[in-house]
């Protein structure tokens, strides 16, 4: 089973990388972009077909490693 975990910075947390990307887009004259926040995507292959247990596993993976919940939020999508 395939799943995707998305980790993003919480609102209000300063994102210098996002700001740098924002500046680079501006220098490319790509118009109409208000702001950029950078996050991370993890594509995960899960054993078995039980969606509830997959969700539980991924939530634990996020809480214990993939996200630092002091400054990051995470979401889990199961295909």
């Amino acid at each position: 089973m395939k799943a995707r975990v998305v980790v993003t910075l919480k609102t209000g947390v300063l994102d210098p990388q996002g700001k740098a990307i924002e500046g680079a887009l501006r220098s490319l004259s790509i118009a109409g972009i208000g702001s950029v926040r950078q996050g991370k995507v993890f594509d995960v292959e899960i054993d078995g077909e039980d969606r509830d247990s997959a969700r539980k596993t991924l939530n634990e993976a996020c809480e214990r490693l993939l996200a630092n919940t002091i400054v990051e939020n995470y979401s889990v999508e199961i295909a």
Partner: protein
Amino acid sequence: MKSAVILFPGSNREQDAARALRAASGAAPAIVWHAEPDLPPGTDLVVLPGGFSYGDYLRCGAIAARSPAMRAVARHAERGGLVLGICNGFQILCEAGLLPGVLMRNANRRFLCRMQHVRVENAGTPFTRGYAEGQVARFAIAHGEGNFEADDATIEAIEDAGQIAFRYCDASGRVDQAANPNGSQRNIAGVFNSRFNVLGLMPHPENLIDPLVGGIDGRPLFEALAG
């Protein structure tokens, strides 16, 4: 004092830490590979050195914080043993939950490698008793992710409990935004845990132990630990 320096893949300041410990205590620390499940028996002090453990993959310190040796370090801290994390070691301690907060990318997006003044905020601990409260020390800094952040309640709590060890300041000891190199909340350069047996700091006191290489402001920290 029996000390151990934990070596992670990508650590690069372990010999600096070992040299400072040897100079202060007369004994060389054990160098412990991160895959070791236990510390050498009788270890009093664990030092997590600077560097780029695991190439800063995922988040700086995140993967090192989950290594077998760090489980032993957590048990050591739980028993009241001393733990000092310098630079990447500080990031690892935050990621391991042994210290509050998190170290984010420097607000100005620059990797900083230079000298920096810090003010000693709490001199009543095993780490800082060789300094006077309010003393200004000159340490080296070398980091891209030293911007200390925590939620407001945590910041208030560590402030009230005296857990702020060092703040970035200017040569006269003034703490303000002009003297803040990386955007850290309240100019925080180092913090203790609530029991004051774990210290993490971004600057490198281990590089300031010899007048030949820029000063000796780091010596009191290692000498206090050596007893």
